[in-house]
């Protein structure tokens, strides 16, 4: 799929880098742990969120009942951009692609009745990660779970927002200050929390190749490492809490090679370039989601098959947690039934196929090892470019690459290349450019999100604004503004106070925005 030329067969004459390593041994190509799924199966972490917090709380409880063992929260577009539901820009988007969170009151409803000390929670939030995290901590502590016991992941990967996902608010450098604050805060106070989930998923969905996903994601990881080290944090105090999030696309072996190369590159760079010593700093651990972009609106049931193959690649590549997409997601958010089939897909792989019994079962395959080496080689080429761009610094290289539209241009070029291949029929997509009989069948029943959720959320926000202590809100927002102006101050404690005072997400973001400014993308086509 990346256009890596493949030989008809691989064998002893192919010069491959690692033969003879074991999983759990440096550089962890074959897996971070010696026994892998024998000792702990991957976490079946299904992403959910829609409508109001009540609706999503109900879906979370359904996931836990069906045997899912980790929660993953999808926020709606206004929340992802730090806007309140009653902002004029939010019109039509409230609760549509995820759950609407305006204040602590919504966060309380979202996790009502769920023991946050016992389950781990992932939150897909980036530009407003710090204030949403503050609300999460405030509600957990109010419900009786101290922050030190909270386990989970904040996506908090702002660099890929400018590169691919495009849900940005503040300019890159100001956003990176908030990332630094969350890394420092969790390193000091939340030993079970993953501060950043460095995400290739969205880079791939936006159109990159597998090698670009690998390289851009790890480069962003190096940038966060340099950011935290620049702030004076010792590498082994925060690196064990960085985790990754990769795509599982349909090109099966290329994906497996990508995960294996990622582990090896991370271990080498962290040890040799950044001086990490702790084993946990060197062991790359990752979440996987099957490729939304590989799903087709045509003959959607076939998507179950695609997702199963992609999920298997994630498992054979040694993922620590997995989300499987539902068959209807090329058209809408999933229905309860299609989401259940997606979870069942993981359960079939885990409990029926026996693939989880042996760690890195493809290790030593001439082909997989050669492809792993090739992925690493391509990634190193891209790192070299960024290093030149940043004058020796990956942090600067990544920021300059964003400011110069280098990442964005490469991703758009790769997306267009693939589109042309599909248009020419050089790449087959079943039901789209071949095997289209059956495309005219009756459409599936889809989940319909009504505007009633929006109306309900607006009423709720109104009530919270009315009932809170106005003097406390004014005081804490004033403090937030003055602290934002001093880059030496960590904003997390004041954001937690603001959340506790029921300041809205929009208020916190706008207050910081008066100091930080806004990012405007110059679009390239």
């Amino acid at each position, binding site marked *: 799929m990346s256009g890596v030329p493949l030989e008809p067969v691989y064998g002893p004459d192919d010069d491959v880098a690692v033969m003879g390593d074991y999983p759990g041994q440096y550089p962890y190509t074959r897996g971070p742990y010696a026994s892998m799924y024998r000792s702990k199966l991957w976490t079946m972490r299904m992403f959910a969120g829609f409508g109001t917090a009540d609706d999503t709380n109900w879906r979370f409880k359904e996931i836990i009942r069906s045997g899912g063992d980790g929660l993953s929260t999808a926020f709606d577009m206004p929340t992802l951009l730090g806007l309140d539901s009653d902002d004029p820009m939010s019109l039509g988007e409230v609760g549509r*692609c995820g759950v609407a969170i305006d204040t602590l009151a919504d966060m309380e409803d979202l996790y009502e009745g769920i023991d946050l000390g016992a389950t781990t929670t992932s939150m897909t939030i980036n530009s407003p990660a710090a204030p949403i995290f503050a609300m999460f901590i405030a509600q957990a502590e109010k419900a009786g779970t101290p922050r030190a016991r909270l386990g989970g992941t904040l996506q908090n990967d702002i660099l890929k927002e400018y590169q691919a996902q*495009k849900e940005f608010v503040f300019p890159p450098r100001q956003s990176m200050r908030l990332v630094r604050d969350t890394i420092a805060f969790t390193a000091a106070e939340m030993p079970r929390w993953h501060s950043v989930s460095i995400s290739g998923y969205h880079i791939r969905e*936006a*159109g990159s190749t597998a090698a670009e996903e690998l390289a851009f994601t790890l480069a962003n990881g190096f940038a966060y490492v340099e950011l935290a080290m620049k702030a004076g944090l010792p590498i082994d105090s925060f690196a064990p809490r960085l985790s990754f999030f990769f795509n599982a696309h349909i090109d099966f072996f290329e994906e497996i090679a990508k995960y294996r190369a990622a582990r090896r590159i991370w271990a080498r760079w962290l040890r040799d370039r950044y001086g990490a010593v702790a084993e946990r700093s060197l062991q790359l651990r990752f979440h996987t989601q099957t490729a939304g972009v590989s799903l087709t*609106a045509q003959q959607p049931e076939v998507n179950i098959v695609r997702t199963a193959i992609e999920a298997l690649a994630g498992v054979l590549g040694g993922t620590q947690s997995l989300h499987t997409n539902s068959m209807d997601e090329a058209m*809408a958010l999933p229905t309860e039934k299609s989401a259940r089939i997606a979870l069942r897909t993981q359960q079939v792989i885990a409990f029926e196929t026996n693939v989880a019994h042996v760690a890195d079962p493809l290790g030593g395959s001439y082909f997989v090892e050669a492809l792993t080496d090739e992925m690493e080689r391509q990634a190193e080429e891209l790192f070299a470019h960024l290093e030149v761009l940043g004058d020796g610094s990956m942090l600067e290289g990544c920021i300059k690459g964003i400011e110069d539209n280098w990442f964005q241009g490469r991703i758009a070029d790769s*997306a267009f290349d693939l589109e042309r291949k599909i248009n020419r029929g050089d790449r087959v997509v079943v039901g789209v450019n071949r095997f289209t009989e059956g495309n005219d069948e009756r459409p599936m029943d889809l989940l319909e999100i009504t505007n009633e959720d929006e109306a309900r959320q607006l009423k709720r926000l109104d009530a919270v604004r009315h009932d809170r202590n106005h003097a406390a809100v004014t005081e804490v927002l004033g403090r937030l503004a003055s602290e934002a102006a001093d880059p030496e101050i960590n904003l997390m404690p004041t954001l937690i106070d603001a959340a506790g005072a029921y300041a809205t997400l929009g208020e916190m973001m706008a207050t910081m925005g008066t100091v930080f400014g806004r990012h405007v993308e110059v*679009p390239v086509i």
Partner: protein
Amino acid sequence: MSERILIGKVGLDGHDRGVKVVARILRDAGFEVIYTGLFQTPATMAAAAVDEDVDLVGLSMLSGAHMTLAPAVVEAMRAAGSNAPVVVGGIIPDQHIERLKAAGVAAVLTPGAPADQVVAVIREVLDQAAAAQP
């Protein structure tokens, strides 16, 4: 002179893979393409349609807000004095297509539409609009 097409992303949806691919497809097909970038409102789309004197407006919508935002763009354009037809592309469930057309959207392109179909639909909408001119 080639026809001018304004392509935009309205609302908060940041998914811009499709819009960029379609912009290139139309440019390669000989149209003059202007891309607004992200986070437009119905008012900014209408203003750009008038200022750029475009022949057609394309909206890329993947967040599910199309039933609210697409009719609002059509209405804002008509109020601002642009009669250019509006084509919507993206994740649009089948049952919404007729409702969008009733609200003044000229055509809808859904996931998997091949390049030649995109060009053909745009061509047809432009020809119909030209024929309807007094």
